[in-house]
């Protein structure tokens, strides 16, 4: 059995008196260390799917297992620990805290860990920032960074706690082609060297093609691409 197992997962949003099915009966079995790309039209339910796997939205129906455990039977604190230590989330929109520097933004998820690592976290933060090409922006505030640079800080942050699974929602959305390719190389490297599982939503078909497993969302339905 895989690291992530979705069985017939559905999510309906209540919109006024109607209900809108953002995800319909999604099933998937994703093994540890897999690199999965997800493509699909705007509004097809990609973000909703990642949020479900990230323990941020309750499914209307179905089960989501992480390493064999049904994550929606967990307490709020257990879900927080899961988000903190097991997964790294790259959001579709800007998600840095404006009053923290790039490095402090990276250190924030460390502060939420239940057991504080003894030391070396500062060095790790700097190393990750260098890895995404921001070695000279370590102490810059988000407002002092370009949109693409902010995006890369958020990418680096997702790796801070050494997650088993990266949930990336259009992580390279506002990057130029060259930087985008660099980020993709970085992801593949982490995937190979650390065995980190990736689920990456992208509109870039070239990037999607580089993933071993390719999925497509269409009107809430998840299928092989």
């Amino acid at each position, binding site marked *: 059995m895989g690291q992530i197992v979705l069985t017939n997962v559905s999510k309906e949003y209540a919109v006024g008196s109607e209900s809108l099915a953002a995800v319909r009966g999604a099933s998937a079995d994703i093994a540890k260390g897999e690199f999965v790309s997800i493509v699909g039209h705007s509004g097809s339910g990609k973000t909703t799917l990642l949020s479900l796997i990230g323990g941020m939205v309750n499914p209307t129906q179905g089960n989501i297992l992480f390493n064999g455990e049904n994550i929606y039977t967990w307490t709020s604190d257990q879900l927080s620990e899961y988000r903190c*230590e097991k997964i790294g989330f790259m959001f579709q*929109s800007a998600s840095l*805290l404006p*009053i923290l520097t790039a490095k402090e933004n990276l*250190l924030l998820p460390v*502060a939420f860990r239940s057991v504080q690592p003894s030391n070396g976290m500062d060095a790790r933060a700097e190393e990750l920032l260098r890895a995404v090409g921001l070695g000279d922006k370590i102490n810059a505030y988000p407002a002092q960074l370009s949109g693409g640079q902010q995006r890369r800080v958020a990418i680096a942050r997702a790796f801070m706690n050494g997650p088993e699974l990266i949930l990336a929602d259009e992580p390279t959305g506002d990057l130029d082609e060259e930087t985008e390719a660099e980020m993709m190389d970085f992801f593949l490297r982490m995937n190979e060297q650390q065995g980190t599982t990736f689920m990456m939503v992208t509109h870039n078909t070239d990037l999607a093609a580089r993933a071993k497993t390719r999925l497509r969302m269409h009107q809430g339905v998840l299928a092989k691409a």
Partner: protein
Amino acid sequence: MTRLLSFSVKNIKRKPTRTAILVFAIGLLVSALVFSLSFVQRVNGSIRKASERLGADLIVVPTGARGATEEILLENKTKSFYMDRSIMDRVAAINGVAAVTEQVYLVTLATLCCSVPEAMVVAYNQDTDFIVGPWLIEKLKRKLKKGEAVAGSESSFNIRLGLVDVDSKLFGSMFKIVGTMDKTGTGLDNAVFITTDNLNDIIKSGKVTVKPGQISLVFVKVNPGVNPATVAAEVENTIIDADAMARKDIGKNIIATLKDMSRIFTMTIILAAIMSFFLVWAIFTAIANERAKEVGIMRSIGAKESHIMNLYLAEVVVIGVLGSVLGILFGSFLSVVLAKGFTIVKQLSTDLSMTERSLIALASFVGGMLICVLGALGPIQRLKKLEPLTVIKAE
């Protein structure tokens, strides 16, 4: 945790003006607390100490002179009133009375008679005295002679001259000031003491209103086991010309007035507390709205509800500590400086001890912190319950 704390500090610095307003409001509340607690405590304490130092179980005064007596004993006002000496003998004859001694109060008037500004002169009977003697023991170690006087520890004789063994003119007679009194904590600290032997000469001078055979009041000691209140009632029933008050009743009038003042203070403080509470609440509601997205981000990357709670509580606590400390400093300053504007406080003879001041500061600190934390609790509770997803959708 230290990381989160430094994050709180950064949050506090985000809007310095708003933080300053909050700190200021809490500061005002706490200083009002410090001021009124100091005031009430000081007046209460002075009255208690004064009556403890008095050494008599009962005081018998002319009918209607209770208030004036309290003003002399507690507020060091200058007053005089007289009754016939025979009243003392009648008091002494009452069942349960162990000892009596009289005092005669004279008021000096600067221009008319004496070489000092307006002051109380207390003539006491050295043969029967049990009030003044104990205050003198340390200083003089002998009885006063005719023509000698002792200055109260705060009296203008003492303050003006700064030394003893100086001749002063009182009601036409020369007196040698041979010593100063221990501090008693009563209004009599401002008086000058002479013995009743001098009264005949003073009355002859015609510069006082007291007539021969008159006294101001009688101090009474009762036998062990006798209730002073019973004796007081007996005095009032049998002697129409006299009022009696038990020691524990001394200051009743002032305490009653004080109770009204305390009530006003209490109401002011409650109003200030309610206003501060709502200010904290309103500001933290605004903060909660502004930072909803940030909280969503933090929850999404793994913050527990308790992390959010601690993060914002730390912010409140820092603001509360700043405000309370400022308030304590300002309130203590007020209670020293502003209190001088209150006649009742100006005339009290005892000040607050260091322990009392510390306790008042501590109580006020706790009060300030409580308002801060309670006011912010609602908004913070709402903040920590935010769904992590909110952020992902908010563009």
